[in-house]
């Protein structure tokens, strides 16, 4: 009985998800014993042609991380979808767009202009040469993938079976997912493979979170040294725990940093950023309109960066509207 085939691919990615697999440490030996990794560009030398030659559904599971930013990502997502029984969105970027998703505040023209013309470190007259999808060189024609205006999530591109949340997903969650696949014990299609409760539920600082949580001031993380035991929100430090899915074992909290929401919402929330914004606005105990507005201007100068840090492409509006007056 041959071992199930597994593929791992990265789109617009930082490589952290690949490292998360390596972080399995000794557990990776159990994984390699049980499966056959047939495609993993960062670590193994298999080529795209090797995947193209496979039969449809020949790969048991493909894990895809990274957001869909370019035509190459879209192409590979479609290819791996075709050749795989299960397609799993691995990590925040494929799940919700991730940090590359913040690129949706701009478009190709603005991004290229900044990088290839306006950046101060370019030579005196700027460079001004944009990447072209087709170029003629002495040797012939050279192609580059197309850079899209809008970053998309994996499920906005292909049909996705499951989601492993996190930036990156933890080794524990990865092993749980791998075991569930090998034992055939996967939940309903479309599930996020992490508990469906909010982070506060598994947080050690829960006891210090008052029943009626109200704050008079917001402290940004660089402004204070946080108390190592008290609930961040009770200290006035914005923590997105109340609206974020649990399962990460509060790694950030344990390092004395508040949650920034990388696991995304629980199943009961449609738009993560809007919901968590609502939660933060609710606990600010200021009823004077001018005072509240001033506090927000001073302490939350970049609401999209705080509330949609990992999830802009998956939000209801998906991207900045470029056309308004």
């Amino acid at each position: 009985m041959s071992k199930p085939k597994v593929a791992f691919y990265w789109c617009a990615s930082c490589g952290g998800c690949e490292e998360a697999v390596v972080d399995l440490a000794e557990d990776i030996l159990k994984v390699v014993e049980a499966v056959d990794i047939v495609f993993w560009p960062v670590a193994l030398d298999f080529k795209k042609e090797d995947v193209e030659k496979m039969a449809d559904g020949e790969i048991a599971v493909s894990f895809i991380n990274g957001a869909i930013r370019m035509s190459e990502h879209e192409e590979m997502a479609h290819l791996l979808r075709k050749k795989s029984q299960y397609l799993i969105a691995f990590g925040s970027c494929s799940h919700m767009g991730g940090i590359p998703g913040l690129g949706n505040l701009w478009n190709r023209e603005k991004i290229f202009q900044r990088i290839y013309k306006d950046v101060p470190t370019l030579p005196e007259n700027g460079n001004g040469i944009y990447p072209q999808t087709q170029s003629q060189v002495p040797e012939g024609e050279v192609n580059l993938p197309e850079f899209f205006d809008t970053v998309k999530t994996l499920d906005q591109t292909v049909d996705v079976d499951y989601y492993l949340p996190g930036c990156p997903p933890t080794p524990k969650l990865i092993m749980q997912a791998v075991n569930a696949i090998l034992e055939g014990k996967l939940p309903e299609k479309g599930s996020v493979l992490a508990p469906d409760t909010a982070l506060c539920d598994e947080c050690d600082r829960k006891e210090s979170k008052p029943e009626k949580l109200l704050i008079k001031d917001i402290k940004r993380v660089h402004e204070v040294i946080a108390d190592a035991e008290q609930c961040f929100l009770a200290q006035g430090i914005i923590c997105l725990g109340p609206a974020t899915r649990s399962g990460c074992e509060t790694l950030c909290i344990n390092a004395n940093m508040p949650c920034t929401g990388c696991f995304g919402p629980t199943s009961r929330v449609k738009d993560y950023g809007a919901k968590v914004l609502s939660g933060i606005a609710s606990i600010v105990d200021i009823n004077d309109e001018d005072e509240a507005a001033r506090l927000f201007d001073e302490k939350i100068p970049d609401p999209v960066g705080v509330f949609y840090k990992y999830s802009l492409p998956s939000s209801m509006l998906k991207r900045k509207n470029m056309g308004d007056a």
Partner: protein
Amino acid sequence: MPEHDPKIVAMFCTWCTYTAADLAGTSRRTYAPNVRIIRVMCSGRVDPQFVLAAFEHGADGVLIGGCHPGDCHYQEGNYKAFRRMTLLRKMLKQMGIDERRLRLEWISASEGDKVQRVIDEMTEELRQLGPLHIQESVAAVETPAYAVAAG
């Protein structure tokens, strides 16, 4: 080319603004027909997701009406509404949606005239601003399905 006719989605609180809208009606005050009114118990019930859903589905503007500060039937709901909408408006501005498209007004049950004035004003302002066209950028991103999490 037909002149743009703005669509406004309004969410009015039961105790004050919705009652005021009724009063505007019984007083035979005519106002622009561009508004679709949704009744909520309190302005504090308005979830920012409702506002986004309105824009996502073609609204050019969203109007929220609640009781004056201090008069909320549920004590603090309107304060929460104010804080939420202030922060949301800021975030929407970053998302390329003009701040004037999300409006929060305190309209008490006796202010039928204010309902008329606000709706007429907002309709005209949005007519000048032009249509939002959100649907085009949203539709450009096909979404096969929202994730269903059994959890």
